[in-house]
């Protein structure tokens, strides 16, 4: 049984969060993400959860981290300017390994930019926004149904790997209305629980890798396991440690806990890509143009396809590399001046040409505009030039 609804992407995020078991939200209103705060304010208390409109963006993610320490699944949402403000706290969540989900509905930047216009200019910030080496996960939905699914997945990844997860949306997906089918009740949907300690409190070491997964078990504050959260470099006890080895060990484990689980974390969609000469690489809202553009190109006799990273970070390095076994050219399309394209170039290592169709004028591309770029790429292949 289910309900067929017409929802905005932002509203689908709210439903996904409720379904995933998120029971705390702290945040500050900002266009184009505000519908998420409004939806959470209405929905959370209905299911016994709590919503707070905080004094600023920093307090938004701060309350989320505090609630998560208390064992409650917690989320915040924002857009560019607020995402910049949340960066220090994202670093704390990386270092102290506090699960939380941060939604960024991207708009045109920098600064106040264009609040109601779509862009994907925060894709590198999502990876490197906070200072210092750090590892986190970012996922990017392209449709309203996927907003529901990926919000649940973001929560699950965050709880499983004890790291902040960025749900990297854009104004297109956030404000787009689409048909979505939701279950009447979320009770039967699987909900991921963070790993609880398997040892008694006196033996618990908050950051010990007890099962080889590199992900330490996390006790909720008030559960009888008393431990210490710190943003200072700490060893497996959780207490600050200043030695070179402690720093290196900590960085190594934080990196490896995601790297060794890449197969589980890194997901992508391939659309007509198997035999494609020209593979469009596009994510989030920009990918929506690509399905039609690929179909139009196929109709015109060009073997085109789409590779859509769903997990934006960690980067789908292996899958992108593998594309070059068949593809003769990759065409990266993104709504910025060209950011993700550099990652693609790194993975491709010059084996095939990588072209960029960058659009950064407040508006998404039309399928015809992208088709024109696909044509140029196909002609380039024919003429043997880039």
């Amino acid at each position, binding site marked *: 049984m289910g309900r067929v609804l017409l929802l905005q992407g932002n509203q689908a995020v709210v439903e996904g969060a409720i379904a995933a078991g998120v029971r*705390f939200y702290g945040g500050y209103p900002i266009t184009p993400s505000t519908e998420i705060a409004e939806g959470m304010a209405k929905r959370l208390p209905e299911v016994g959860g709590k919503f707070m409109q905080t004094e600023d963006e920093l307090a938004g993610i701060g309350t989320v981290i505090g609630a998560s320490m208390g064992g409650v699944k917690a989320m915040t949402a924002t857009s560019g300017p607020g995402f910049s403000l949340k960066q220090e706290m994202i670093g704390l969540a990386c270092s102290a390994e506090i699960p939380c989900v941060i939604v960024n509905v991207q708009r045109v930047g920098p600064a106040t930019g264009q609040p109601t216009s779509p862009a994907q200019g925060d894709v590198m910030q999502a990876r490197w926004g906070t200072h210092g080496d750090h590892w986190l996960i970012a996922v990017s939905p392209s449709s309203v149904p996927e907003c529901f699914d990926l919000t649940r997945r973001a929560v699950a990844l965050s709880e499983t790997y004890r790291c902040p997860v960025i749900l990297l949306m854009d104004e297109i997906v956030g404000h787009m209305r689409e048909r979505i089918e939701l279950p009447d009740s979320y009770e039967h949907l699987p909900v991921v629980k963070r790993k609880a300690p398997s040892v008694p409190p006196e033996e618990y070491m908050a950051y010990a890798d007890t099962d080889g997964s590199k992900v330490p078990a996390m006790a909720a504050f008030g559960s009888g396991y008393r431990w210490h959260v710190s943003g200072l470099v700490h060893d497996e006890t959780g207490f600050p440690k200043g030695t070179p080895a402690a720093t290196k060990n900590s960085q190594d484990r934080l990196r490896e806990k995601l790297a060794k689980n890449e197969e589980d974390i890194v997901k992508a969609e391939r659309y007509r890509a198997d035999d494609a000469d020209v593979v469009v690489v596009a994510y989030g809202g920009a990918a929506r143009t690509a399905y039609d553009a690929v179909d139009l190109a196929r109709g015109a006799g060009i073997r085109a396809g789409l590779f859509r990273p769903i997990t934006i970070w960690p980067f789908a390095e292996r899958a992108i590399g593998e594309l070059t076994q068949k593809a003769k050219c990759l065409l990266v399309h993104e709504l910025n001046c060209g950011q993700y394209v550099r990652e693609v170039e790194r993975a491709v290592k010059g084996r095939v040409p990588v072209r960029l169709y960058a659009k950064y004028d407040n508006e998404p591309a039309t399928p015809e505009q992208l088709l024109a770029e696909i044509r140029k790429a196909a002609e380039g292949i024919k003429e043997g030039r880039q």
Partner: protein
Amino acid sequence: MKSMEELVNVYFRPGRLPHLWCPGCGNGVILGALLKAIDAEGLEKDNVAIISGIGCSSRASGYVDFNTANTLHGRALPISTGLKMARPDLNVITLSGDGDCSAIGGNHLIHAVRRNVGLTLVVFNNSIYGMTGGQYSPLTPIGSRATTAPYLTIEPSFDILALAQAAGATFTARATTYHVPVLVDVLRKGIRHDGFSIIEVVTGCPTNFGRQNKIGAPALMMEWQKDHAVPRAAWEKLDDEARRGKFPIGVLFERTDEKEYTKAYDEIIERAQAAKKEETA
């Protein structure tokens, strides 16, 4: 009441000492008084969370055996608030310094006060940024010397309790590291208060404030506290002239006419669930 040695044995985490505070620093006195208050109130360790920001004061959280967090500069209050929302049953005690709380975390302070979240905030006011070596804070008295004020400060300082009261505080108190019985007493009352309580503790930083301002040795800084702090009852009887340069200690303001925030939020849950029931009926 337990002796200090007993308190150390019960509440300090084994292996976490020595602490990093300088000789003569008052922070240990405050932490000791806090443990006395927690012990006297009969709180279970598992039900106490100590959340701190960044600075000398904030290192206190790591030494003691509770649910603890040494978070980010200025952000102890939002994190404490989130924890309290998740676990209203916990006694959440927030430790912060004058810079942490009134400068970089100033916005969070006024809003935590305004919401009346059930937190106990202890402000270690040593009038200076000690950890970074003696820069002036919003609580540094005007005319003081600091490493970033080599020609003396020209900024008036906050009265942080007056600030809190203007923001709608339901409990404010002050003590010094000289007046330990007063300190323990106001900490106990602050913990018991059902709402947000702010306790300012005037403490000495001989290394980074006393030395620069030629106040001198730790004992002299304690004497300064003794000479300048006036118990509230006596304070009430002083005229403006007699009050000049001095400050009151004890519980300065308390009211119980406002609901604690997480309890008020329970009413939101009730209203939302009643509305939902009506909608589906």
